[in-house]
C-alpha cells in the first residue's frame, strides 16, 4: 500500500508552504493578515490551517486578562510530588528554571529546540561533561510575598532546591545523577554529575525543573499549598475545581514583562463547556482535536486564529510484554506491525489530520517528518506477509492475548477496536480488550508484570532528547515502560548522552530509531495533531513543537499580549 504517497507527511508540500510563509512574511502582522493566509490542500491531511503562527511585529500592549478553560486541576502544588499537567500548566509561570527552551517570539519555527538562559545567564560544561557550571543572573528577586518578601535569589537556593528534588518525590531518578553541588559564590552553581551527560542543560530546561523556595518548604513541610517562585506571575488564588488566578509580578527580572495583568485558568472538566466558553468569548484560547471541531467553531467564530499543531513526537503505542512468549520473538512483533493498517487510523479516526506514529521526535535526527517508507519493511501494511511471518514464528493459527487500556480520549477506543479487528482478520489473533479507569490502568501499566498487550504511553512532561532516548528506552531506566531490553539500544543511548557534537547526536539518534523500528520494540500508533485556536486579539501564543501553550509549554504565556 503506497501510503508514503498519500500520507499526511507530504513533506514536499509542507516545505513549500513553510518557505512561502517565511518569504511572504505574513506572520506577525496580526489577525487580519492571518485570516488572509492561503489555505493549503493535501499537506498534513486536509487541514487548511498554518502550522506556525509567527509572533506579532507590533509593539506589545500591556494589560488585560488572559483566560483559558482547562480540564486539568492541579492535585497539589508541590513540584516534587507530581508531574501532572494540572500543576505545570502554570507552575512554569510562577517559577523559573535555570535554563529554558526558546519562546515563540524567539523561535525560528515550531521545531526550534534552542536553549536560552532563564535564571542562569550562561552555562558551560567541562570537556568530559561531568561538571556543569551555571552563572546566575544578578538581582533576580523572589516574589514579594511572605515569607520570601522579595529577597534576592542566590546559588544556595538552587543547591537547596536540587538537593530536595533528589531527596524525595518523582524527580529523584534525574536529580540523583548529580553527585555533588558546589556554590563557589552567590551567583555560581557547579554540578558534578555521576556520569558524563551532555544533556544536563536540556534536562534543567524541562518545564518540571522549576526552582521552588526554601522558606516555604521549611515552614510548611511540603509545597502542597503555596507556590512562590521568581516567575513572571504570582499565584493569587487556587480554588480547587474552580480556578487558578495568576497576577503579574511587578518585580520580574525580565523588565517590562509579562504583558498581561492576569492569567486566569478556569477549571472546566467538560469539553462542550470549554468550547462554549471560547465561542462566547469567556476564554481566549483552546485546544481542539479534529478538523471538524475547528470547522464547527469557526462557523460562530470566523475570526478565530487557528494553528494546525504538528506533532513531532507520539506518545501512545502498543506495548508488548516482550520479555515473554510470544512477544519475545521478533517475528511475532514484526507480524503484528505489518498486520495493522495505521494509515487507515489516520484517515478515519483522525480525519486525515494525524501522524502515523513514532517514539523519538523526528526533529532530533532529521528535518522532515518520516515518510511511511522510512519506518522500514516491517511497518508497511502487508497482511499476507504478516500471516506468513507469524506462521514461521510457530503461530500459523494465531493465538489469544489480552490488551488493556485507558481511554485518554474517545478516538483511542476506536483505535483499539481497529487493532483488535485487524489482528483477528489478518493473523487470527484473538485480543480480549479491557478498558480501565486511569488509576487501575496506570498502576497496572507501570508495574512490569502484566502479560499480553497494553496501549502504552510515554509521558509528555519532558521533551529533551535524553528523555526520549535513554530515559524511555534504556533497559535499566525506571521509565522503560515498554519493557525494552536491547543491548544495542542500551549502548547507543549511553553513547548518545556522552556525545557533545550535535551532528553526531543526530547520527546516533537515527541509529537508535532504526534499531527500534527494525526490532519493533514499541509499536507506535497514529496520533492526532490537533489545533490551537486563538481569539483574534491574542498574540504570541503559538505552540512550539512538543510544548503546547496550554500545557507544559505554559511559560511562554510570559510573552503573550492582548491586542485590544
Amino acid at each position, binding site marked *: 500500500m503506497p501510503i508514503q504517497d498519500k500520507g499526511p507527511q507530504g513533506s514536499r508540500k509542507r516545505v513549500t508552504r513553510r518557505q512561502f510563509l517565511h518569504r511572504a512574511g505574513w506572520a506577525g502582522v496580526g489577525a487580519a493578515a492571518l485570516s488572509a493566509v492561503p489555505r493549503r490542500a493535501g499537506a498534513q491531511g486536509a487541514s487548511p490551517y498554518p502550522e506556525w503562527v509567527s509572533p506579532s511585529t507590533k509593539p506589545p500592549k500591556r494589560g488585560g486578562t488572559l483566560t483559558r*478553560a482547562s480540564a486539568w486541576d492541579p*492535585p*497539589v502544588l508541590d513540584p516534587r*510530588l*507530581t*508531574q*501532572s499537567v494540572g500543576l505545570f500548566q502554570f507552575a512554569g509561570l510562577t517559577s523559573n528554571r535555570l535554563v529554558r527552551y526558546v519562546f515563540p517570539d524567539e523561535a525560528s519555527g515550531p521545531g526550534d529546540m534552542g536553549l536560552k538562559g532563564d535564571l542562569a545567564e550562561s552555562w558551560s560544561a567541562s570537556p568530559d561533561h561531568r561538571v556543569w557550571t551555571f552563572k546566575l543572573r544578578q538581582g533576580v528577586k523572589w516574589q514579594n510575598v511572605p515569607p520570601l518578601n522579595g529577597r534576592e535569589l542566590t546559588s544556595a537556593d538552587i543547591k537547596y532546591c536540587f538537593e530536595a528534588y533528589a531527596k*524525595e*518525590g*518523582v*524527580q*529523584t*531518578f*534525574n536529580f540523583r545523577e548529580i553527585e555533588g553541588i558546589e556554590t563557589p559564590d552567590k551567583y555560581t552553581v557547579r554540578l558534578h554529575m555521576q556520569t558524563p551527560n551532555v544533556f544536563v542543560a536540556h534536562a534543567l530546561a524541562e518545564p518540571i525543573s522549576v526552582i521552588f523556595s526554601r522558606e516555604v518548604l521549611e515552614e510548611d513541610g*511540603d509545597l*502542597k*499549598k503555596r507556590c512562590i517562585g521568581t516567575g513572571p506571575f504570582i499565584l493569587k488564588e487556587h*480554588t*480547587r*475545581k*474552580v*480556578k487558578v488566578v495568576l497576577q503579574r509580578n511587578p518585580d520580574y527580572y525580565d523588565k517590562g514583562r509579562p504583558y498581561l495583568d492576569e492569567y*486566569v485558568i*478556569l*477549571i*472546566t*472538566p*467538560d469539553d*462542550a*463547556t470549554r*468550547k*462554549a*466558553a471560547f*465561542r*462566547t*468569548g*469567556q*476564554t481566549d484560547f483552546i485546544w481542539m482535536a479534529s478538523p471538524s471541531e475547528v470547522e464547527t467553531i469557526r462557523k*460562530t467564530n470566523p475570526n478565530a486564529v487557528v494553528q494546525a499543531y504538528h506533532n513531532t513526537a507520539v506518545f501512545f503505542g502498543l506495548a508488548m510484554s516482550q520479555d515473554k512468549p510470544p512477544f519475545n520473538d521478533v517475528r511475532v512483533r514484526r507480524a503484528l506491525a505489518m498486520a495493522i493498517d495505521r494509515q487507515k487510523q489516520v484517515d478515519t479516526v483522525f480525519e486525515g489530520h494525524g501522524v502515523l506514529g513514532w517514539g523519538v521526535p523526528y526533529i532530533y535526527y532529521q528535518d522532515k517528518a518520516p515518510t511511511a517508507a522510512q519506518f522500514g519493511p516491517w511497518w508497511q501494511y502487508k497482511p499476507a506477509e504478516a500471516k506468513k511471518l507469524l506462521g514461521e514464528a510457530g503461530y500459523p493459527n494465531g493465538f489469544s492475548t489480552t490488551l488493556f487500556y485507558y481511554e485518554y480520549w474517545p478516538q483511542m477506543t476506536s483505535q483499539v477496536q481497529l487493532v483488535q479487528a485487524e489482528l483477528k482478520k489478518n493473523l487470527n489473533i484473538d485480543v480480549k480488550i479491557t478498558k480501565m*479507569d*486511569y*488509576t*487501575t490502568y*496506570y*498502576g*497496572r501499566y*507501570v508495574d512490569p508484570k502484566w502479560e499480553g498487550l497494553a496501549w502504552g*504511553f510515554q*509521558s509528555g*512532561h519532558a521533551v529533551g532528547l535524553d528523555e526520549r532516548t535513554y530515559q524511555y528506552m534504556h533497559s535499566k531506566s*525506571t*521509565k522503560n*515502560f515498554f519493557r525494552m531490553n536491547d543491548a544495542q539500544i542500551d549502548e547507543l543511548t549511553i553513547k548518545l548522552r556522552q556525545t557533545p557534537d550535535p551532528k553526531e547526536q543526530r547520527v546516533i539518534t537515527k541509529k537508535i530509531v532504526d534499531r527500534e523500528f527494525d526490532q519493533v520494540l514499541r509499536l507506535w500508533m497514529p496520533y492526532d495533531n490537533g489545533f490551537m485556536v486563538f481569539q483574534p486579539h491574542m498574540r504570541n501564543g503559538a505552540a512550539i513543537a512538543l510544548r503546547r501553550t496550554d500545557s507544559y509549554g505554559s511559560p511562554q504565556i510570559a510573552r503573550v499580549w492582548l491586542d485590544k
Partner: protein
Amino acid sequence: MYKYVLRRVLLAVPVLLLSSLIVFGLMRVMPGDALTVLMAESGNIGEKELQKLRKDLRLDLPYHEQYLLWLWQMVSLRPGDSLLTGERISTSLWKAIPVTLELTALAMVLGLAIAVPIGVLSATRQDTTSDYAGRMVAVSGLSFPDFWLGTLVITFAAIWFKWIPPIGYVSFWESPTRNLQQFLLPAAVLGFRLSAATMRMTRSTVLEVLREDYVRTAWAKGLGGRIVVYKHALKNALIPVVTVIGGQLGVLLAGAVVIETIFALPGMGRLTVEAILYRDYPVVQTNVMLVAATLVTLNLVVDMTYAWLDPRIRYR
C-alpha cells in the same frame, strides 16, 4: 410519635455501620491507590520512596486498623485530610455542600413549579391536547439523559444567544447576580429532569383522587373547580408525590455529578467522583457516609410529612 422517631434513629446506626463497611471494603478492593495517581506518569519513583509515602499516609496499616481509625475520626467529627491534596475533608465539604444544596434547592423549586401544575392540568383535562402535551413533556424529561440535555443547552446557548453561564463558581454572598446566572441553566436542566417523574406521579394520583367519593361530594355541593382540585384533591394526592420528591432529593444531594461537571460547579458530585477516580479513600468514605446519613434523615422526614398531609396516618 417520639418513640417512633427514636426507634428510627436507633435503627439508623446499623444501617450507617453497614454502609461504612461496604464503602470501606469497596474502596480497598479497587486496584491502585492515591499514590499511584499522585505519581502518575513520572515513572521515576522507587519502591522505597513509595513505601515511605504510603507510611506517611498510613496506607501501610492493616485494613482493620485503617477502618477503626477512620470510624473513630468520623464519630469524633474529624474526618481527616484528603490523601491527594492534603486539604481537610471538612474544608472540602464546607465548600462543596453549599453548591450542591443551592443547585438542589433551585432545581427542586423549578421542577415542582413545572411538575405540579402540569400534572394537575393533565389529570383534570384527561385525554385532551393539554394532557397529551403534558405527558409528552414528562416522557421527554424521563427520556433525555442529563449529559445530553446539559450539553445541548450549553452548546446552543452559546451558538444562539452568545451567552453561557459565567464559568468559575462565585458564591451567592459574593455576587448574587453572577451566582444566579451560574445556577439558572443547570437548575433548569436538572429541574426539568426531576419534574418528569413528579409530573407523572401527580397526574396519576390526582386522576385517582378525582374519582373518590369525597371529591364527587365536593362537586355535588357546587364548589368551584379550583377549590375542589387544589383544596380537596391535590392535598390527598400528594402523599406518593412526596415519596418521589424525597427519593429525588436524596439522589440530588448524593451528587448531580453530570450537571456539576458540565456547568463546572464544584459540588458534592464532582468531589466524590474525583475522589473515587483518585482513590482518595477518606474523602470517598466521608462523602458516602454523609449521603447515607442524609438519605436516612430524608426518609424519616418523608414519613413525618405523610402524617402532616394525611391526618389519618399515625406513627407509634
